[in-house]
Each structure stands twice: as C-alpha cells, then as structure tokens.
C-alpha cells in the first residue's frame, strides 16, 4: 500500500500538467451537476423553512360561501384573518389620455395583510398598509418601465385614479411569479370603490387565516368538512401547498441533474482519452516497475490511486465552479423569485457530485488502465513488444459492462427513478452508437474517394487513418457536443418562431372576456366603430358535467351555428346552421382523447338544475394560436340560449399602436369589469419565457461544448508522438513548415467538417422529434443554423488542432529523430 500511495503521489507530482485535462473534464461535469442541483435545493430549503410565506398565512380558503367563514373569525383556533381579492385588470397612466392600457394582476388587501412575512419595497422603504390608503398603489418595477412612470405618478385602474406610493421588491404569497402581467397592490375598499368587483368580474376572493401554532391542519379539516357541498371550494394549509411544490421542484432537480450527468458522461469520454494517452506515455515506466518486481496489482494500484486523487481534485474544483454558478445564476433569477434564498452549494449536492465524479473517473479510466496488465517488462529491452496478442480480454469486457451499469446506477440515482435511468442510458447508448456508426461510415466513404490529386490533401486525409488515430473518438465527442448545441438552437428558434406574432396567421389578436349580456351591444358597437369590423361575439356558459349520475367537473362551453376558419372537423360532421331542439355538441380532439369520447357518444350537463344530455356529432381540431376561451365544447344553437351567460369577444385589432390603444382605453374606461387581452403582448411575453429557458439550456449546452473541446485537445495529444515523428521525416525530406501547417489544417478541417455534419444531421432528427412529440409544435427545417453549426465546428476543430500541434510544426527534426 505504501508503494502504491508513494508512487501515485510521485507520478502525479511530475505529471500533473499532463493530467490537467483529466480533472478539468471531471470539474466541469461535477460543477454543472452540483451547481444546478444546489440551486434547486436552495430554493426547496427556503420554501421548507419559510413555508408559511407560500400563502402568507397558515390556511387560505376560496369558497362561494364566504358567509360561513365569518363564523370562524371568533374560533379559538383562529388568531387572525384577512381577505384579499385578486384579478386581472387594465391599467394606464392617468396623466396621458392617449396612454395604452395594459393588463396587470391586481391584489386588493386589508389592514392585516400579510399575516406572515413582509412586503419589501425597493430603496429600503418600509411597507405599511397606510401606503395604500386613499387610493395608493404599490407596483412592480416592470409596470413603471411599461408605462414610463415613476413613484408619485397616477395610474387609472377601473373608474379611479391611484397614486404610485412605492415599488414592490418581494412580497409573500408570490413565491414564483412567472405571470406576464405585472402585479399591483391596492387597498381592499379602493378596489371595491373602483368598480372592479362588480358583477361579472372574474374576481378570486381568498380568506387568509392565522391559527394557533400547529393547528393549521385542524382548521383546514374543519373547513373542508363544513364546506364540503361547495364544489369550487379550495382550502390549503401552508403545509399542503409546500408538499406538491417541493415535489415538482424535486422533479426539476432530478432532470437538471441528468443534464449534468450528460456533461459528466461526456467528461468521462475525455477522461478515457486522457488516461489512454497517459498510459501510452507511461509504458516504459510501467515496464521498468515490472522489471523491478512490481506486480500488476502494484502498478495498477498506483495508477488507480492517481485516478482517484484526480477524480477527487477535479470534483473539488467542480464544487468551486458550482459555487460560481450559484453566485451567477441567482442574479438572473432574482427578478423572478420573490423570496429570500441563501444560494450556495448544498452538502447533499456536493457529496452526490463528488461521488458521481469519482465514480465516472474510475469507470471511464478503467479500460485504458487495464492496458497496464498487458505491458510486458521486456519493453525495456525491445521496443516492439508493447503488449501481448489480441486475445479476447474478458476483463475489458467486464469493464465495459461495469461502465454501463455504473452509468445506469448514476442516472437512476440522479433521476430518482430506474425507468428514467434506463431511458437516459438507452438514449445515450443509442446516440453514441449512431454517432460512432455515422463517423465510421463517413471515414469509409472518404477512404473510397480514391487518389486525391494534391500531396497536401492526400497527406492530410491519410492522417485520419494513421496508427493509433483518434478519428473516431474525436468524431464521436465533438459530434456529440455539436449535436447537443445545434439541437438546442434548432428547438429554441423553432419555439421562438412559434411565438412570433408576425410569422403565424393570427386572425384575432385582441380578446375580451367577462362582457355582460347587457353590455354586449355597446361593446360590439365600440369595437366595430374603432376596429372597422364587427367582432366575433362568443357566448360563455359555465356548466357542470354529470358523469354516471354524479356532478363532476365544471366547463366553460359555448354555442354557435358554424365552423370557424381556424378549425377543421377530424371526425363526424358539423351541424347545419339551423337551431335544433335535440342537443348536439362538437368537442375538440383533446377532450375526445382525455375522456375517450367519440362521435355518437353522449355527454350530460347540469344547467340550472336541469340535466341536458347532448350527442357528440363531430370532433374538431383548432389552431391553438387563435384565442378562444370556450372552444373545447360547442353546442348546436337551440339548447342553451336562455341559460345565464357572459360574452367573450375577439377581433383583429388595428396594427398601429394609437388606434389599438384607443380600443383598449375605451373598453377599460367604459366597462371596467371587462378584461382585454392583447395577444401581441402575450406573444412577446411568451417569447421572453422561451428566451429565459434558453439561457439555462444554453448554459448547459456551453458546458457540453467545453467538454467536447477538452476531449478534442486530449485526443490530439494522443497522436502527438506519431505526428511529431511524421513531421520530422517530412521536414528531413524537404517539407517546409508551411507545408506541414497546410497538412495539419487539412487534417483537422476534414475532421471538423465530418464532426459538424454528423452532429448537425443528428440534431435535425432530435429537434424534429422534440418539437413534434414533446412540445407538440410545428417544426421547420433551419438549414442556416445547421450550416453555421458545421462551419463553426470546422473552424473550432481546425483552430484547436493547429494550436495544439504548434510544437509539431516548430520542433527541429533532428531532436525528434534522435529520440526515436
């Protein structure tokens, strides 16, 4: 043991710079894995420790029977209570009559709000409910930017003007706010006075309770029991809100860790290459040790100890990288997560990352390390006896199996599921096989091209088959990196173009909901006057589905005589426009799928206590980008006209900002209960979300690419001895330095080209599959992205190849030939 440890230490002391790539590969893998996992774990820990802030109370209740709740105000369980209202509404600058109204998410609160936590304002201002009194409003920074306003300015909400008294930095009850509309906070009574809660408004009323310590579940149970007949009842204690959120975050954490594992596995390939080079360079030392009495276990042990030490060092460096990630990414997330989180590398993630790093280092270095057994001590006397014959090496096969099993175990561990671990490994193996096969096929093809006309071309291409060449390793590793990065970009651009307002046919881009029946004619007239065309008015009815005689889910439904231009019938036949006394319905394909209903089946609904059974006569597929809030279930006219209903409207709004703003302004001013959606803005917000996601994905892709470059550098180093010798001979035979550079350029140029083509081609297939099956989005080929991918790979591989071979070009031939 002493010898093994001493030898490992001495070897590392002398060769650490050769193994730099080794621990960089580990460091990047571990860094990305630990960094991503720590981020989520920090968020989870914050949620757990500050769980009450999730709802800013111990229990929150939404019910139609608010009167029942009043009985609980004096319950011995309840310490305090408060009510809040939340809804979407339009806001505009009060000073500028031409300002564009924009959608906000309004929260109206009472004196006691929040029961837990604090509303934090920017510039260190202290929140007090008095700030909201007399029509004060607190807003998010985004609103100030959107409307070009500042603190002290007035905004118009509903019928009233409100003064901006401060800017909210963080508020409890809003842990993650990814809503496109900015939030505003007003006083409860002011909201009522502004006419925002008039009949027809889609207001969400929530009663918040503070209970005696540990009594939150008791109160929640009592409320659920007492209000069990209320079908729209929602009772949450902070504990049952935290549970599902933590579970969702655990899933995100596991998926992100799998991404980290992809990087680590790629790093493993780099490790394998570097170890192979290292062992090749150490052949003579190994032979000497064997001459001096070193048994295989001694020598193997010494190098295995080095791998362990390097895995550990690389892992520690990875932890440092992860720390940088946890410092950098939260700055980006700060605007989106409004609670205090102490970001840092968590012990759990650090230990997992270190363990995974060491395991990957050991597994992937095992096959090259096993070569040590085949090194004969006679190598010190005769150069040509490097290793014994090519018998089947069972130990190597076992090592291969161990790698697969180890990766499976790691993937299952990281994903927290054997199934996902298996799918991950299967995907990785399939991708690896496909890339390797494509590489081999391309090389075979190149070999068959025949006699190349120029010496430089011939020599450059021939270099790809030189003894000990790393062509397939480079093609695989760089190809895999290109594959990942190009796929990310193809998916991202496809997603962005889905949310590009100009690139898709939007027949209606202004939508309105919550129009009352008595407002219908007026709204229609306003819209027709300002937009120059009549809007489509869509009746909205809330009906409860009845299944097997029992009341079930509530649905928004509508009725109309004809098929719209943005939809097509996929089964059955759409009805004639005439009303029919026999109820008929047409359902969208997703309802058909989810409820396993087909043409000829029936659905029963409860309409004011009367049950209507309707026959499905057609199934439709609608363009999802045409806004229609009630398209899933459509009745044939004749059955629902007399039932209570609201109206939605949509219209193709004018393109110029002025007239468009005028429509929104007039609707907001005259009908405060009506909510207007501007889809141009919604699309922009969606593009923003896609961009945010792409930043994280690009960050991961960047790590993958860095690993690919490291593997490339390592693989080039592997053939350095051959190339040095070849260059020396060529120079002796009269080749100039320029000629050698040209040959090197051709060699790596071809390699880069092949890797780029393989990676890009595979990326087309994967991006198509992701778009079609995972995102269910339309896919379009983007040859320019692929071409840029190929060109960038060609340039990068050539640059790295030439830079890594500088000494090959510069060294004097005599020095090399002498040592040979």
């Amino acid at each position, binding site marked *: 043991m002493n010898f093994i440890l*001493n030898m490992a230490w*001495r070897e590392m002391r002398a060769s650490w710079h050769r193994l730099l790539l080794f621990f960089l590969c580990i460091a990047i893998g571990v860094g990305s894995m630990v960094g991503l996992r720590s981020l989520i774990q920090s968020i989870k820990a914050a949620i757990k420790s500050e769980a009450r802030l999730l709802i800013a109370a111990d229990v929150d209740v939404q019910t139609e029977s608010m009167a029942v709740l009043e009985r609980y105000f004096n319950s011995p369980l309840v310490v305090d209570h408060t009510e809040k209202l939340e809804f979407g509404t339009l806001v505009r600058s009060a000073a500028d009559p031409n300002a564009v109204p924009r959608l906000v998410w309004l929260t109206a609160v009472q004196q006691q709000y929040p029961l837990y936590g604090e509303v934090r304002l920017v510039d260190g201002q202290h929140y007090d409910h008095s700030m909201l009194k007399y029509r004060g409003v607190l807003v998010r920074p985004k609103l100030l930017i959107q409307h070009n306003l500042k603190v002290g300015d007035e905004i118009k909400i509903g019928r009233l003007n409100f003064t901006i008294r401060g800017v909210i930095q963080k508020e409890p009850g809003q842990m993650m706010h990814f809503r496109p509309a900015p939030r505003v906070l007003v006083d409860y009574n002011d909201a009522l006075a502004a006419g925002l809660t008039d009949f027809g408004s889609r207001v969400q009323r929530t009663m918040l309770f503070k209970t005696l310590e540990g009594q939150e579940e008791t109160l929640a149970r009592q409320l659920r029991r007492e209000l069990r007949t209320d079908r729209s009842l929602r009772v949450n204690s902070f504990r049952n809100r935290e549970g599902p959120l933590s579970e969702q975050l655990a899933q995100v954490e596991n998926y992100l860790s799998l991404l980290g594992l992809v990087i680590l596995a790629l790093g493993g390939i780099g490790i394998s290459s570097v170890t192979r080079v290292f062992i090749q360079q150490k052949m003579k030392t190994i032979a000497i040790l064997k001459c001096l*009495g070193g*048994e295989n276990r001694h020598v193997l042990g010494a190098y295995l100890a080095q791998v362990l030490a390097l895995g550990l060092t690389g892992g520690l460096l990875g932890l440092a990288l992860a720390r940088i990630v946890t410092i950098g990414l939260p700055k980006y997330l700060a605007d989106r997560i409004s609670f205090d989180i102490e970001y840092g590398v968590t012990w759990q993630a650090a230990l997992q990352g270190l363990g995974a790093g060491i395991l990957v280092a050991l597994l992937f270095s095992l096959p090259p390390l096993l070569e040590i*057994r085949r090194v004969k001590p006679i190598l*010190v*006397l005769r150069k040509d*006896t490097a290793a014994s014959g090519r018998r089947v090496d069972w130990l190597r096969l076992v090592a291969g199996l161990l790698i697969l099993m180890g990766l499976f175990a790691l993937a299952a561990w990281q994903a927290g599921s054997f199934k996902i671990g298996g799918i991950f490994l299967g995907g990785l193996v399939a991708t690896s096989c496909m890339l390797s096969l494509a590489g081999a096929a391309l090389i075979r093809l190149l070999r068959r091209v025949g006699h190349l006309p120029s010496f430089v071309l011939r020599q450059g291409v021939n270099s790809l088959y030189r003894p000990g060449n790393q062509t397939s390793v480079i093609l695989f590793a760089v190809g895999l990196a290109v594959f990942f990065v190009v796929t990310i970009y193809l998916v991202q651009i496809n997603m962005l173009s889905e949310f590009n307002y100009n690139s898709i046919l939007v027949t209606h881009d202004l939508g309105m909901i919550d129009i009352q029946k008595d407002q219908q004619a007026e709204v229609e007239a306003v819209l027709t006057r300002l937009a120059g065309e009549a809007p489509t008015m869509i009746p909205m009815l809330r009906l409860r589905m009845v299944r097997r005689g029992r009341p079930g889910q509530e649905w928004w439904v509508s009725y109309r005589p004809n098929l719209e231009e943005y939809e097509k019938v996929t089964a059955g036949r759409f009805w004639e426009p005439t009303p029919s006394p026999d109820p008929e319905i047409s359902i969208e394909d997703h309802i058909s799928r989810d409820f396993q209903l087909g043409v000829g089946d029936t659905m029963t609904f409860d309409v004011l206590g009367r049950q209507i059974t309707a026959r499905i006569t057609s199934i439709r597929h609608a363009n999802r980008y045409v806004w229609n809030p009630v398209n899933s279930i459509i009745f044939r006219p004749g059955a629902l006209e007399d039932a209570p209903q609201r109206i939605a409207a949509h219209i193709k709004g004018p393109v110029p900002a002025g007239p468009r703003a005028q429509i929104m302004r007039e609707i907001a001013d005259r009908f405060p209960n009506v909510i207007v959606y501007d889809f141009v803005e919604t699309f922009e917000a969606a593009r923003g979300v896609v961009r945010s996601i792409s930043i994280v994905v690009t960050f991961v892709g960047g790590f993958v690419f860095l690993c690919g470059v490291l593997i490339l550098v390592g693989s080039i180093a592997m053939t350095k001895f051959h190339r040095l010798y070849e260059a020396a001979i060529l120079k002796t035979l009269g080749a100039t330095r320029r000629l050698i550079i040209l040959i090197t350029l051709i060699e790596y140029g071809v390699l880069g080209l092949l890797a780029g083509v393989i990676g890009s081609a595979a990326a087309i297939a994967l991006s198509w599959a992701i778009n079609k099956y995972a995102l269910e989005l339309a896919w379009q080929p983007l040859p320019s992205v692929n071409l840029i991918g190929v060109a960038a790979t060609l340039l990068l591989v050539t640059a790295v190849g030439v830079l890594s071979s500088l000494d090959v070009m510069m060294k004097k031939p005599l020095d090399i030939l002498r040592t040979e």
Partner: protein
Amino acid sequence: MRRGFYYYISIMIRLTNVSKTVMSGSEKLTILHAVDMFIPRGQFVAVVGPSGSGKSTMLSLVAGLDAPTTGDIFLDGEYINRLSEDELARLRGAKVGFIFQSFHLIPSLTAYENILVPMEIMKLQQARARAQKLLDEIGLHERGHHYPSQLSGGEQQRVAIARAFSNDPAILLADEPTGNLDSKNGMHVFELLVKLNRERGTTLLLVTHEHALAEQADRIISLNEGRIVEDLQKEN
C-alpha cells in the same frame, strides 16, 4: 519432481536446451539455439558476442522477461517457465537486480526515489535509510533529490546500479551497462559495479561488447548466431 532433480545448492542459473524463435514477418527466426548453461552462485560471468548473437535475448529469458520457445530455466533452484507474470515479478523483486544500457530510471522520480522503489515494492524494512546509504556508496549523496534528466549519463548509471543492489539480489543482470557512456565514465561505473558485486557476493551476468570489461569476469561465454561458441572459465 523436476525441481528436485535439477536442484543444486551451488547453481544459481541453469538453462537446459533453451531456444527462442520469433516471427519476422511471415518467417520464423531462431535467435537462440538449444542453449545449455549453468552459472554457480557468486560467479561473475561476461556474455560477449556480435550484435544479433542473442546476448540480450538470453538475459531477458534468464530474468523471466520473456518465455523460451523450448527448454527449461531455473533461477536459484526455482523452475520459472510456468510462473505467471506476477510470480515472475515477485521473483525478480526478491532475487534479481537489473542494470540497462540506457539506464531506464523512472523520469518522474528523483535519484533517491528511484533507488527506493524496489525496496518499497518488496516492503523492506528501513528502506529509506538503506536508499540513503546506497546513495552515499555511489558518491551521489548530494544529488539524491535530482531527477534523472538533471543527472549526467554516468551519474544516472550509478543510480541504476544502486537501484539494482537495493534489494540485495542474489542475481545481478547487466545489459551493456557502459554502452551509453564515454570510456572514463564507463570505467568508473564498471569499477563500482564490480566492487559492489564482490562485496555482496552477487551472481553477476554481464552482457558486453567490450573485451576489456569481459576480461575482468570469472568466466566469459561467447555467443554467435544464437549458439554458445566458447565458454572460458578463469583459473582462480
């Protein structure tokens, strides 16, 4: 049973009908032809012969670095033909010291550490003190912390000699130990080798081109085209 039959207490190396054939392209090439030889304990034997006569091959077979095509080899009474790689390594560690023409020091270790390695492998007691003593004996007391690349050829070979003696081996195999040195350094190294050999009573098998060195041996075996053509034993 075979061991009992061939076991002589005074014989350190025994080769019986040993031949070595290798493939050269598609043709068989015999490097050693049915060599019979025994070397008693403590004898200093020089093996001479032109290039390609099979000297180094014979040395590698004796050390168990290579396996013979035919014949039997015994080292200190132990039949080595059937030993595994690891058993041979153990045997070398315990009984054989090596000196090579191109020194073959481990470049990543200092002179002192190079001497230490065989003792560490064999887990010898007081290895460090012994390595220091050997450094003193070869006159490199001050240069123990230097790496091979920082030493001259002569100094490297002296370190190699100290390394070869570090385990107190019963057999010392030297393959042209002065071949890469100038005559002055070569003579210095050779004298050191002979001195340490005499002091420790080691059996020394020295392969050399130089007749002047061979003359110092107790016995000179001449090889030509893989056959022993002369075996001269000096009178004491």
